[in-house]
């Protein structure tokens, strides 16, 4: 049933560049990137019960490393991508050790503080990061000699990466490890008594989420061909977190829907409203009031209720 319902969606995603204009194709690419980012954050927030307000660190650092290596040190895109992902993973491992000393609000504050440090560095270390000017004039990679400069070709590349990311994370949460993670979220004490190491499970998840955050960062910098400290800012982290919660944390579809919602609001509302954040806030408030568990679980519940009503 689920697979049949997914077929039109898959067809739409594959065929989008054939009928949509560049503006919409580019918008779709941005949504895919934001979706990978939100999905990685959802591993922490939804499946791990670790609410992070500093996830932009991984997107930003992944992007910055790649930008610096390709523009300043003459690295090719391949090696730059590998170094940037390795660097992001190492950073997640280190940050995880610090942040996982706490849970709940303490964890949130530490992740926020760490990401603010990076944001401050990106702003102030202008001899390296070019500060508020950002790093411009970047190029997109050419995997197997295929240019990604057109909107459609980049979209297909982003779609491929997003599909792999979605699949990998879907398998991750349904795996034994994913079950352990959910168990540790719900009953950490019980899980420890059953032989699971809660800290290690959280730490590995933290690193895995950092990895996908880094991947989304690479796509982000490839897409924009530019990087600015705002990518590391609290706004960037908070938007993703809002997307995850609005869409439905702890579900696979939720973060994707949420990320799309935030991005569409940003793109459309900001054309008419200077304070588009206010509209985002109102929409978020509406969702929280009407569907406290998020759009995707909320709609799913509505559907079952309708189906029951029809019977």
């Amino acid at each position, binding site marked *: 049933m689920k697979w049949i319902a997914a077929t039109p969606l898959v067809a739409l995603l594959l065929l989008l560049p054939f009928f949509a204009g560049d503006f919409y194709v580019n918008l779709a690419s941005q949504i895919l990137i934001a979706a990978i980012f939100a999905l990685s954050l959802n591993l922490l927030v939804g499946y791990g019960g670790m609410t992070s307000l500093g996830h932009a660190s991984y997107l930003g650092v992944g992007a910055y490393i790649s930008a610096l290596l390709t523009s300043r040190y003459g690295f090719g895109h391949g090696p730059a991508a590998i170094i940037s992902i390795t660097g992001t993973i190492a950073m997640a491992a280190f940050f995880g050790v610090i942040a996982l000393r706490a849970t709940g609000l303490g964890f949130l504050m530490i992740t926020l503080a760490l990401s603010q440090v990076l944001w401050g560095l990106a702003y102030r270390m202008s001899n390296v990061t070019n500060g508020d000017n950002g790093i411009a004039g970047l190029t997109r990679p050419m995997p197997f000699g295929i240019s990604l400069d057109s909107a459609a070709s980049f979209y297909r590349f982003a779609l491929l990466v997003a599909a792999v990311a979605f699949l990998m994370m879907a398998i991750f949460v349904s795996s034994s490890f994913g079950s352990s993670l959910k168990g540790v979220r719900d*009953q950490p004490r*019980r899980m420890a008594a059953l032989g699971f190491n809660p800290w290690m499970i959280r730490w590995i998840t933290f690193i895995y989420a950092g990895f996908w955050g880094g991947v989304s960062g690479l796509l982000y910098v490839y897409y924009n061909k530019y990087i600015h400290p705002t990518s590391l800012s609290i706004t960037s982290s908070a938007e993703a977190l809002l997307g995850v919660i609005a869409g439905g944390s702890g579900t696979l579809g939720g973060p994707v829907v949420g990320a799309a919602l935030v991005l569409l609001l940003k793109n459309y509302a900001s054309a008419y409203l200077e304070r588009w954040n206010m509209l985002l806030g109102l929409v978020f408030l509406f969702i929280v009031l009407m569907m406290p568990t998020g759009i995707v679980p909320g709609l799913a519940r509505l559907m079952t209720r309708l189906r029951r009503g029809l019977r």
Partner: protein
Amino acid sequence: MTPHALEIINLHKAFGGLSVTQNVNLAIRPGERRLIIGPNGAGKTTLFNQISGDMRPNSGQISLFGTDVTQFAPYKRAHFGLSRTYQIITLFTGDTLEHNVTLGLLGLRSSRWQMWRPLSFYGDLTAEAHRTLDAVGLLHLAAHPVSDIAYGEKRRVELAMALAQKPRVLLLDEPLAGLSNTERSQVKSLIASIPRETTVIMIEHDMDTALDLAETVTLLNYGRVIVDGDRDSVIADERTREVYLGV
């Protein structure tokens, strides 16, 4: 001489000025059925929490089969053959009974680290979970979420999760609490059927049922061991009457 299944030496635990475990010494043989009794606040569950590692004692030593585990994290003790149930039911309420028991099985297997293979592909885990649920008489509810089942059934799931691990030492914290008479006798025969390879240490207030299951009894009061010995002598002891039975 074979080492004791559980040996506790000079255990002490205090919350501020309140000593909840004072100079406790216990030695339990492999396969023994030990009942721990005492009035409310005697420090029975606190003692269990120290044995399972949820709480660290201030001083003293806890050994399992001759190995000092005092500094071990709870999960490490589980791999050493220790399982426990909780007085306050601690289950994964949104998940099915099958999933709950599967988690118990998974906890001791290295496949718990597997990230690239859906859990549902492990047919042997599911089969084993079904066997355990069958043993506690809940197989027909395997696919139901825990939130759907009755209180007495939840108590049996608690037990099933621990039994699935085939522990060497099993700590049961009031396994009969809040059960009806029929449920009581069900759980009682379940505990009675636990194989002798498992040492059972049980906290229980229902003396009629618990005494049938126990071979040895320890009476705690204000964190101290008051009387300790085989069942009949502890029950006959004057101090037991004074502190606990109140007759």
